[in-house]
């Protein structure tokens, strides 16, 4: 009888061993990257382009959206993919807003006296407040009627006023991190 109790105790212990093993493979985290491309040409001193991006169209987001419990901003960068002429000097400004042109600004970054050329890249440094606003928008996506749309603007200004054609093509890359249960 004593040995039977030992067997039962061991069986229960082994089962508990498993239950803790079960939980290990439920929690996941995944990065969700996306890119917004801007392009504009001008004969004056500044370029401007705006785009909207719906995260709901992102393949990674589609795969995991129903399982996400926490969503946060991780990193953002820009990468110049083409210029006319080969090198320009000016001020680069990037703005990302909620939803559309009238939406709340999620972040704004300005890079002054920048040499703009194909391959020029830099990382955005957001303040803690900007990150909090961004993260609150991401979290709201999972509440009822939360929007998944971002609106972005790219401006290159203070270009040389020589009347010649200038063109800038630049990608804004964003990386988000999602956590949840599978």
């Amino acid at each position, binding site marked *: 009888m004593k*040995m039977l109790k030992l067997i039962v105790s061991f069986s229960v212990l082994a089962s508990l061993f498993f239950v803790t*093993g*079960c939980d290990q493979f439920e929690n996941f985290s995944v*990065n969700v990257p996306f890119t917004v491309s801007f392009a504009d040409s001008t004969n004056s001193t500044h370029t401007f382009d705006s785009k909207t991006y719906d995260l709901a169209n992102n393949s990674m987001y589609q*795969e995991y959206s129903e399982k996400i419990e926490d969503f946060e901003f991780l990193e953002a960068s820009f990468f110049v993919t083409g210029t006319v002429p080969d090198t320009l000097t000016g001020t680069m400004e990037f703005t990302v807003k909620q939803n559309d042109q009238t939406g709340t600004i999620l972040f704004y970054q300005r890079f002054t006296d920048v040499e703009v050329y194909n391959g020029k890249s830099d990382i955005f440094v957001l303040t803690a407040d900007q990150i909090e606003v961004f993260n609150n928008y991401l979290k709201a996506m999972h509440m009822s009627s939360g929007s998944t749309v971002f609106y972005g603007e790219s401006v290159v200004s203070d270009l040389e006023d020589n009347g010649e054609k200038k063109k800038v093509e630049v*990608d804004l*890359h964003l990386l988000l991190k999602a956590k949840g249960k599978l």
Partner: protein
Amino acid sequence: MKKHLVPIIITILSVFQTLSAGVDDVLSFISKENAEGYLRPLATSLGLGLNSGLYHTASVSEKFSFGISLRASVMLIPDDHKRFNPSTPDGYVSGTTSTIFGGEPGYSYGSGGYVSYPGGFDVDHLPLAFPQITLGYKGFELTSKFIPKQELGKDKSEFYFYSFALKHELSRYFKLLPVHAAVQIGTGKIKFSEQLEFNNMVFNGIVSKKFGVATLYGGLGYQLTTVDVNYTTTGDPDNADPSLHEAKDISLNIRGDNGAGVTFGSMIKLAYFVFNFDYTYNSQSVLSTGLSIEF
């Protein structure tokens, strides 16, 4: 015993279902080049788990013997099994990123944007337990553990596993040996899901020495575990990794890191009841214990 085995088996299936669902979900966005590094530690763990608890003595009865036991093992995952060096697209450079046992997902940055690698499940140890049956006669002992074919989860994924090992006591031919010695060969398979199937072989050399009701035992073993991986990537034309732009059927074979290892253990036998505990040194350390009824 059956009353206690059924809930154990149900719990085992739940673990594998959760593990299977977790793995299946992350494979959709892994390139073929990175699937191997990501999954290899899992192949190692499951191979080590399947090969654990196959013996607790080198001695085999001359008369017919039968035993039924419950075996539990835990594989301890070292830090170097939680990271691997991913393959990156041209123009990208990356540090290490997480394996299936690692933590945060990694990423690298280049002209095409952010290339993301899957995160792991933050696993420090992987526990497994199995019921096991042994049959012995005239120096030969067959050990078997298995779960028959099951359909798990909403998509009814097929799951089963089996493991058979045949041990032969060599010391029965050398009566003057101060210890018992045996050799053992085993094979097994885990059909994990529609995407993963593990195949396994093991060769063990075993020695043991009895001290009253206690026995000390040890073994040198060599394991070969491979996993056949078949999955389909989700085509993502916007992905910064060109190899993930189109949906692709991926097939590869991954070999685990569980090669040679050494085991030390002890067992206590009181009447028909046997309790044992052992430690295996391999690329992942394994702690194993078992409770048996042997006739």
